[in-house]
């Protein structure tokens, strides 16, 4: 790897890690959400550097552009910017540190104990990330998982609409009692 590439990947990796740390340490929910957005966008840049612009832009559109916008919307609407100092789940900090240590130990052990160096991945064809290739794969080889995902999302949408549905007033203009509504 050339020095320029190493420099670029380390700069991107540094931003990813720092924004991740910022996400879990900031006590303001808005800042935490913004750190997560920065994280998503930087990971998208990594995808572009790896030659997969389609997944990069899909990541920006879906995660940074839609999901995080809704997160921000809810945080602002509820006025829940300030996170509580006391943690609702006791002991999660200790557990988190333990798991992080275990993960680091696994990584170190993997590097130390692996026998031969891992085989370099097969060279992929240059058009592996074109929209045509991805579309063909999604609609031919992975059609069933694709349709099942769509079904799950549709069920979630229907559920959300049902839960926010307001009881319709009857002809006299009075709201029906809730138990009657649920019997129907």
């Amino acid at each position, binding site marked *: 790897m050339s020095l320029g590439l190493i420099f670029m990947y380390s700069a991107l990796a540094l931003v990813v890690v720092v924004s991740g740390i910022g996400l879990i340490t900031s006590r303001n929910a*808005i800042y935490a959400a*913004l750190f997560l*957005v920065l994280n998503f*966008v930087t990971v998208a840049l990594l995808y572009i550097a790896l030659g997969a*612009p*389609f997944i990069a*832009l*899909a990541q*920006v*559109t879906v995660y*940074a*552009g*839609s999901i995080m*916008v*809704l997160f*921000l*919307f809810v945080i*602002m*609407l509820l006025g829940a910017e300030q996170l509580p100092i006391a943690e609702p789940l006791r002991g999660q900090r200790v557990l988190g540190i333990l798991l992080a240590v275990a993960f680091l130990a696994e990584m170190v052990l993997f590097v130390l104990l692996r026998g031969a160096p891992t085989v370099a991945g097969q060279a992929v064809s240059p058009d592996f990330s*074109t*929209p*045509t290739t991805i579309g063909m794969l999604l609609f031919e080889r992975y059609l069933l998982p694709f349709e099942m995902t769509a079904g799950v999302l549709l069920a979630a949408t229907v559920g959300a609409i049902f839960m926010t549905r307001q009881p319709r007033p009857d002809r006299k203009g009075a709201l029906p009692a809730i138990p009657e509504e649920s019997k129907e």
Partner: protein
Amino acid sequence: MITAAMVWEWVIKSVIICLAMTIGFAYVTLYERKVLARIQVRVGPNRAGPWGALQPLADAVKLIFKEELTPATADKKIFFIAPIITVLPMLVITAVIPWGESVTIGGKTFNLYLTDSNIATLYLMAVTSISVYGITLAGWSSNNKYALMGGLRSTAQMVSYELALGLSFVGPIMLASSMSILDIVHAQSKIWYIFFQPAGFLLFFVASLAEVNRAPFDMPEAEQELTAGYHAEYSGMKFALFFMAEYGKMIAVSMIGSSLFLGGFLSPVGFLSNIPVIGFLFGNGPHWLLLKVAAWLFVMIWIRATWPRIRYDRLMALGWKIMFPLGLLNVVITAIVIVLVGG
């Protein structure tokens, strides 16, 4: 292989695009004021320079020398960064729009576009979806009820209309069977997609008005109810950046719409291009894109001068209950017709 000459070409093209958007913004403000004035039987700005042509410069000088205020209870960091986040997407979004084919200067051929990517339309979607952050954060960081309301409204509005906007892209993509804007423009050399995709065009037009917060969807900055909405607390150059983003986005959506539905830089009277001397005026080229953008902007300004703002719940109902299903229906019908005709 990437050579230094290619990098310089990219840098120069990027600078040209950013400058064109900035100058375009300055003159679209003048264009809007002039057109609004004419529609309301006024004269409009006519003091600075001939026909008021230096008015944008005068405005810029005024805004630079205005005092900038930061509210005492504002979140200083985000308050400072929000205008910048708002302007950046508008400067980069037109990177994938071709201005023309290519020109030959001094024996070297230059393409008249920064990049022709096979994911160009996805890039447009990604940048549009990011562009809501600046407005939302500006509203929140001002620590002002009205500004927060404006920010929240714009978030809800842009998330809702992004769906219809994305679905309106699908028609041209399917017809051209490519996501590259250059391919989509070339596929329209016989007939513009506005004739194949009238519903898609309408969806795009309405959704783009909502996406750039223009009348009749300018709820986030409704003066009567929210003072000035998300930028109520901003002054001086920071306010100018919001202004710039709004007008720059108008230019951007006009360019995107012209390229997707109106043939982009293609000339509608290309058969006249064999006339000597003035023939190039009738050939394909950036001047046709400019003309289409000017016409598109005129319609946007015309709508602002004519229509009242629609109510907020109506806006949401329109987005979710009419435009979104219509977009889905348009995609399905287009797909069926393409399969039947064998396009």
